[in-house]
């Protein structure tokens, strides 16, 4: 096994799962990947990695098994490792560096997870990518200056600081945001998020936008949906609408994604119902007062989120079928739907009804 991949699990995968210091070595190529996959059982730190991933998965699945180190995990780790290596290179679109970037994007292109445990196992690694941080040091002295990316400057450069007029600038760089700014590296990030749909679902961002076509099916899994709803509502309904409404509308325009559109719409309505149930029952005017407070100073997209709920309610995706068992609850939810419709205006609601009907297809029930 090559020297730079001997400590791959301990240096790369374990820090991704537990936090701490991720050590970047030379870029890992296809030969190294094959070798890692072949000898993965003998790599150091496997037990620690498995326990760390199980702890993360236990947040979603109480009975999560300890995941084994499979080929997909190694590919994800290689892609993140190479991404960190590429982030200190100056040019990414020429020569071997471009090849490394292309390979890293390709190596992270995986089949969708087969079950919830595989989903959580991948998330345990890819989630670390969001928090990748690098400490950079820029040293200026009387004769020049030098930058050290993710490295400590040599001691000799910092000696006699007064005489040599040494000035040291330490900065912290968020690598995730930096990677999104480089097209070649952005493809790697997109591949990683596509490989781990749960990571994108949990933390939707304007950029890259949430990819609901691939990830919506997991919202139909109660264990996953429960944690996603909790995470989203912790951010607040208006804040999450800003990042979710556009992907949702984009999903309605995708062909052959009617099941996914129906699931995503139902989950979006579920969020609204949870938010409504957290407050005492109100009439239409009372709900409208709250919604106006929510959307004050917000973009049109946020307002459309509430209109989408009103539209979903009109096509039968806004409330569970057994809600009518409790008349008071049903009255409260109907008042909320009416308030949402009044907030965006009936004309916009009708447009959204058409959009949802086109997207969800046969799942729509018009009363």
């Amino acid at each position, binding site marked *: 096994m090559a020297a730079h991949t001997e400590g791959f699990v301990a240096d790369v995968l374990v820090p991704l799962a537990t936090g701490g210091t991720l*050590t970047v070595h030379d870029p890992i190529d296809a030969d190294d990947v094959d070798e890692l996959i072949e000898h993965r059982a003998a790599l150091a730190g496997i037990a620690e990695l498995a326990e*760390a991933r199980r*702890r993360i998965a*236990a947040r979603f699945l109480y009975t999560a098994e300890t995941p084994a180190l499979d080929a997909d995990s190694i590919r994800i780790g290689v892609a993140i490792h190479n991404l960190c290596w590429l982030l200190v290179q100056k040019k990414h679109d020429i020569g071997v560096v471009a*090849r490394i970037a292309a390979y890293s994007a390709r190596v992270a292109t995986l089949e969708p997870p087969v079950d919830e445990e595989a989903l959580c196992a991948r998330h345990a690694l890819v989630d670390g990518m969001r928090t990748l941080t690098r400490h950079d040091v820029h040293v200026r002295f009387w004769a020049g200056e030098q930058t050290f990316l993710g490295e400590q400057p040599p001691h000799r450069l910092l000696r006699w600081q007064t005489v040599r007029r040494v000035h040291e600038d330490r900065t912290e760089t968020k690598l995730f945001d930096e990677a999104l700014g480089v097209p070649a590296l952005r493809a790697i990030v997109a591949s990683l998020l596509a490989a781990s749909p749960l990571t994108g679902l949990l933390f939707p961002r304007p950029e890259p936008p949430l990819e609901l076509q691939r990830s919506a099916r997991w919202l139909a899994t109660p264990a996953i949906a429960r944690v996603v709803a909790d995470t989203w509502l912790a951010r607040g309904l208006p804040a999450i609408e800003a990042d979710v409404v556009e992907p949702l509308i984009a999903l309605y325009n995708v062909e052959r994604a009617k099941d996914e559109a129906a699931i995503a719409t139902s989950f979006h309505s579920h969020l609204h119902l949870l938010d409504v149930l957290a407050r005492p029952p109100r009439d239409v005017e009372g709900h409208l007062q709250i919604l106006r407070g929510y959307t004050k100073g917000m973009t049109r997209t946020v307002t459309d989120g509430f209109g989408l709920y009103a539209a979903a309610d009109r096509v039968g995706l806004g409330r569970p079928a057994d809600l009518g068992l409790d008349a008071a609850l049903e009255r409260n939810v109907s008042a909320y739907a009416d308030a949402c419709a009044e907030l965006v205006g009936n004309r916009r609601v009708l447009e959204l009804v058409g959009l949802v009907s086109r997207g969800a297809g046969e799942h729509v029930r018009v009363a």
Partner: protein
Amino acid sequence: MLDPVALHQTRFNVPGVLPDGRGVLLGKQGALLFPSVDALVGFFRIFGEEASLDEILPKLRIEEVRGQAGARQFLVLFHAASSYLTDRASRIAVLLGGLGYTGSGKHFVRYRDARSPLGYDARALSSDLGDFLLYDERFTLALSRVREVPFAQLVLRLSPRALPGHRDPELDRGRLWLLAREGLARPLLSYLWRNHVAAFAGTLEPTAGGAAFVGRPRWLLVRVDSLPDRILQLATDLPGVEVYQQVGERALVQVGWRHPIRLEACASIFEADRLYVFSGTRDAAEVFDQPALVPVQGLVERGFQLDERAPPVAQSRAALEQISVPLRLSPSEVGAKVTAVLVPWARVAWLRKLVYAAPQRLLSSAKVMALTEGLLVVAEDGLAAVPIGQPFWRAAPGVLLPVGHRIEPAVSEAVLSEHLGASASRLVLFPLPVGRAPVGIDATSMVPLGRTALEAIEVPTESASRLLGVADRVEPVLVQHGKPGLFPLWGFRSDEGE
């Protein structure tokens, strides 16, 4: 002659009628026409059974009228406060062969029935002469007033009716009165007093009026709270004594008889400070001033003498000689329940071993305190589980005696505790051998055995999420670069198939 009233109709030929909230045509007054006195009395009887007559009494008028054919009839006029009240009155009147009308002044139109639920309106007003004009479907009645019959007169002049059978199903034993001739007063009261019947008695004087030389008998009135069957039977059969039941607040009706009109329903016709007595056997209705009643006991006991007893003898107070003896312990077969144990210091090691076997109840209830002689363990629930040391039993609150000994003299527990100054917060212990002075112990400084039983142990603190096996938070990943190898890009193979 009549047209059915339509919903939302606003114009009517009969004056003084308007639709109410339900749309039913209603005038200020309701009018009920009865062909006979029987029907009239029957109406008040049934109405009083269903509701209070006080609803219609304030503006009630009973007119004896005569029609064009000369037949005598009775017209009852009352204030039609609502169509519900008029509905009830009209229904009862129809039941008794009468007719129901509504209107005001002299014009009255037929009240609603099943054929016209909102009532009727006359096609044209009649010009017949009469004090009252009643418009019906097929005729118009012109009635002339003969005289007015006051309702109070109707009530007071009707004779009570004998009840069939021997028992009155509505008889209330708690509201019985006895009315006796003045000559029977003393024997009757003595009889009640001897039979322990709680009763209050007074005399009745008829109200003034009538000729000066007419004899007005005086009556004894007795109210009995609960009359036994045998005395009730005796009083009923005794000549000169009548048994009455109280009806309402101010009326008495003889037992075995009933007034044709329900008197409870028309309480407002009876004056406040009068008593109305309706006798069936004498067929009389009498009005008395409200009597003042006194307990029977005060009227029966007599034969007092001024010198029945000699004058009371004064007793002087003598000086009390002090009697005091010292407390002492004496052997006796007492103290079945062990409340405290004094473990000598030499045996404390045994107690430590016992703590492992002690039940949770004992560890939580027992309290300990270190004394010079040893460790005192006290448990109110009992200490039978501790077989070492000197056992004590609780002779009085806060007083502990060695098992097999008791205190002499055998004073009460309260006296003993008070004498020794023992309480829940201060225990007094009598140690052996006999003759040693008792020891006072501050109970508030005792500590539960359970709290002293465990040695100190260091318990590491775990966060909740770790205990559950869930990652508690996401630590940031810090990227640092290791030393690059020699020619790191040399021979980089980007295709897995190469």
